[in-house]
């Protein structure tokens, strides 16, 4: 039975609402044994603008946010104005705030500012409000106190005590009030709460990535800074480069000598990496590229989400060459598929792109501690080369690498078309031989990958990729309550593309769900399988689908056979 509660905290950028919502409220819930999902929305500004974070908490697994807000913490008037319509529950706000709260919403006017100033500064309002929320929801302050001690330890006893006092001040203002939504402690099963970028960093560290060269670009920056944070613990060299061109070329240089290397960026930075992508393919040097999408083109919307870069990832750079495009669907996949990406990159000596987006990069999910042992597969590497050929033509298309430092392996790794020894060779015979060889590696890889799972039962098959995975699963929960069901096919590999699973779907009706206008996945399915996708549920307003809206869209398609449904706007 679901006991889902969604809290939203909103306020001006720079007021610490995201931090308070995540590190104080969401982590209190996590440590209380509850399942948590957080989603952040913020403008590309350091001060001002409107920031908000939703924290969806449940006793059972929760795969995405929810558009129904059961408790709103409004640290400014704008938060009330923007989100009041979605509130089914109550609002906590400062008593001096001039707002009208309708009767169907419980109003908790609390002297946040006054209580904060009593503690010596305005900055404690967040903590007071979180204390008040925990009081209303009945969860207690036990976990929050521990968290405050850990988080503010480095700032000294004074800051720790002031924040604990602030939490208690909020708690005492609300704990005796009646509230229809309650959270209760569950058995803590050793979960962790992290976002997609955190999980990519953890996966890369686990996979033995020792080098990252990158240029900051929202929403991928926290992969760079996350690797930097752990660099001394794990012996990783982190290079903040002069531009993205340098980023990919440095990572390729590091990969050439045998270090597992990656770079991270968003669409604009990836555009600068396009030539380097081709270099990796032609020179057959492994590289892993994290691309976190934001809406474009040009600078677009830095802090919003979208899935408009799929075609770009599949086609970027000159001519044609195999590349791997992996789109993790959730935090777990961010961890495990990042590990796999490093194995594939080295084994097949080609570029591997991990395609995420702002929603997955920044949304936190409570998952079991990653524990599976990882097999490191470095592919063919020669130790004592004799008559060595760097690009030897082989049956599986893979030639052994000789890493610099290996006697007898001296050769030129080249971005020009080359013969088996790496010497430039533009003859027709050689060109065909080498082009075929590069594609043969891809065939070998295809055989290694397992077919994606078909989940659920129903004549309609919802096909999704990337960050919409959790939204589809939550929409499925909603529709199941209405005895409506569908089959779910989630694609984590876009290249190579698994055709065989589509053969099983003959006679079924496909509904593609994605965050772009032209349904790029439908285009890909048509190209790869010849299947014309008749039904699409799309959104391209820079925000992720809400599961309730997606459920409505799917309900509509299933009931009426509508071809294309666009869900834009809140």
């Amino acid at each position, binding site marked *: 039975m679901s006991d889902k509660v969604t809290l939203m905290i909103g306020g001006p950028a720079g007021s610490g609402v995201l931090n308070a919502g995540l590190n104080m409220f969401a982590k209190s819930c996590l440590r209380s044994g509850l399942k948590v999902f957080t989603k952040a929305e913020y403008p590309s500004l350091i001060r001002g603008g409107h920031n908000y974070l939703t924290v969806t908490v449940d006793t059972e697994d929760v795969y995405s946010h929810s558009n129904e807000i059961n408790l709103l913490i409004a640290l400014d008037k704008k938060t009330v104005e923007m989100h009041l319509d979605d509130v089914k529950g109550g609002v906590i706000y400062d008593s001096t705030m001039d707002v009208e709260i309708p009767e169907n919403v419980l109003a908790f006017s609390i002297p946040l500012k006054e209580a904060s100033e009593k503690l010596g500064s305005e900055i404690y309002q967040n903590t007071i409000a979180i204390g008040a929320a925990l009081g209303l929801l009945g969860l207690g302050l036990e976990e929050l106190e521990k968290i405050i001690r850990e988080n503010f330890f480095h700032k000294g006893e004074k800051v720790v005590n002031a924040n604990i006092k602030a939490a208690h001040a909020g708690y005492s203002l609300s704990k005796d009030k009646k509230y229809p939504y309650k959270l209760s402690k569950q058995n803590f099963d050793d979960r962790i709460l992290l976002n997609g970028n955190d999980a990519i960093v953890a996966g890369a560290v686990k996979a033995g990535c020792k080098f990252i060269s990158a240029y900051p670009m929202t929403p991928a920056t926290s992969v760079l800074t996350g690797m930097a944070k752990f660099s001394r613990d794990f012996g990783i060299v982190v290079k903040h480069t*002069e531009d993205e*061109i*340098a980023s990919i070329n440095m990572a390729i*240089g590091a990969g050439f000598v045998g270090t597992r290397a990656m770079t991270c960026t968003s669409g604009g930075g990836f555009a600068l990496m396009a030539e380097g992508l081709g270099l990796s393919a032609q020179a057959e040097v492994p590289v892993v590229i994290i691309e976190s999408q934001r809406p474009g083109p040009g600078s677009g919307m830095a802090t919003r989400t979208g899935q408009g870069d799929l075609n770009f990832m599949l086609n970027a750079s000159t001519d044609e060459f195999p590349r791997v495009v992996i789109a993790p669907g959730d935090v777990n996949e961010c961890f495990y598929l990042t590990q796999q990406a490093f194995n594939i990159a080295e084994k097949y000596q080609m570029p591997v792109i991990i395609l995420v987006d702002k929603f997955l990069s920044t949304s936190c999910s409570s998952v079991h501690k990653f524990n599976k042992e990882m097999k490191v597969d470095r592919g063919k590497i020669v130790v004592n080369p004799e008559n060595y050929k760097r690009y030897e033509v082989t049956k599986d298309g893979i030639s052994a690498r000789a890493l610099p430092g290996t006697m007898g392996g001296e050769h030129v790794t080249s971005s020009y078309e080359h013969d088996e020894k790496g010497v430039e060779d533009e003859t027709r015979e050689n060109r065909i031989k080498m082009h075929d060889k590069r594609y043969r590696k891809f065939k070998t890889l295809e055989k290694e990958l397992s077919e994606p799972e078909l989940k659920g039962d129903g004549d309609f098959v919802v096909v999704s990729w990337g960050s919409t995975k959790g939204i589809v699963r939550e929409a499925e929960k909603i529709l199941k309550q209405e005895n409506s069901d569908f089959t779910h096919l989630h694609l984590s590999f876009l290249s190579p593309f698994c055709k065989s699973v589509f053969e099983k779907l003959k006679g079924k009706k496909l509904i593609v769900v994605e965050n772009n206008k032209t349904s790029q996945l439908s285009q890909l399915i048509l190209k790869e399988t010849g299947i014309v996708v008749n039904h699409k549920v799309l959104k391209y307003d820079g925000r992720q689908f809400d599961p309730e809206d997606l459920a409505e869209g799917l309900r509509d398609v299933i009931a009426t056979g509508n071809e294309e449904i666009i869900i834009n706007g809140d």
Partner: protein
Amino acid sequence: MVIDVENEQTCNLDRGKPQWCPGCGDYMILMAVKRAIVELGLKPEETVIVSGIGCGSKLPHFVNVYGFEGLHGRALPVATGIKLANNKLNVIAVAGDGDAYGIGGNHFLHSCRRNLNITYITQDNSIYALTKGQTSPTSEKGKKTNSTPFGVLEEPINPIALGILTGASFVSRGYSHELDHLTELIKNALQHKGFSLVNVLQYCPSMNKQNTLEFFKEKVEILEGNDIGNKMEALKLSERKDKLPIGIFYNVDKPSYDEQEPQITDIPLVKQNIVNIDISKMLEMFQ
């Protein structure tokens, strides 16, 4: 002077012969690089030459060490990744003037201030030769080329001054047809700890009709007695127009990037264990 490449040590005949124009300065630069490697006793397997794209960027093919022939303008970032990943390797990057100071100009500035322990040899003939004669960042103002038929309007870049001002700890200029001098310069650069620039004035017999052998003969002058630790003196010398001084302009001892990176001071990245890495402590931070 015609160089008999086939008889030189460290030349790998499997990789074919250079096909530069007869008399091209690239032959001399190749020879100087090979002599420097042999005379310093660098092990072929521990030496990597990285290049970009251009006539001179074919150079890695003709030296029997590890080579990486990358993209136009991107020799330095590849070389940087190589050195950071395995700082036990001797890393040399070579690039022409368009490659180094035009399309790759940004990497040059940042490589100088990074002061990573690599050697950068630029084959500077003041012209785009492989694409048959367009203006380059080091072309003289007023020079007529096929992309500037009425003369270049821009001032040329001064790579020596740029290197000194942006933080390179070894800045030098050589001339392709002063082979012994160039070989010594490259040896000095390879032995230097930090980023070392060897900007080589290069004779191009086919595409640059102004900078002839006679021109160089008259202009080139070997530096003697200059104070290589004096930045202002070095800058002043680099601005000389009456003569083109060759030699070491600037050479100072300061920490290189790699020796300030504690992750690689004991063992190179590439030698680190990557199997069964324990991330349990890291994961606890997410609770």
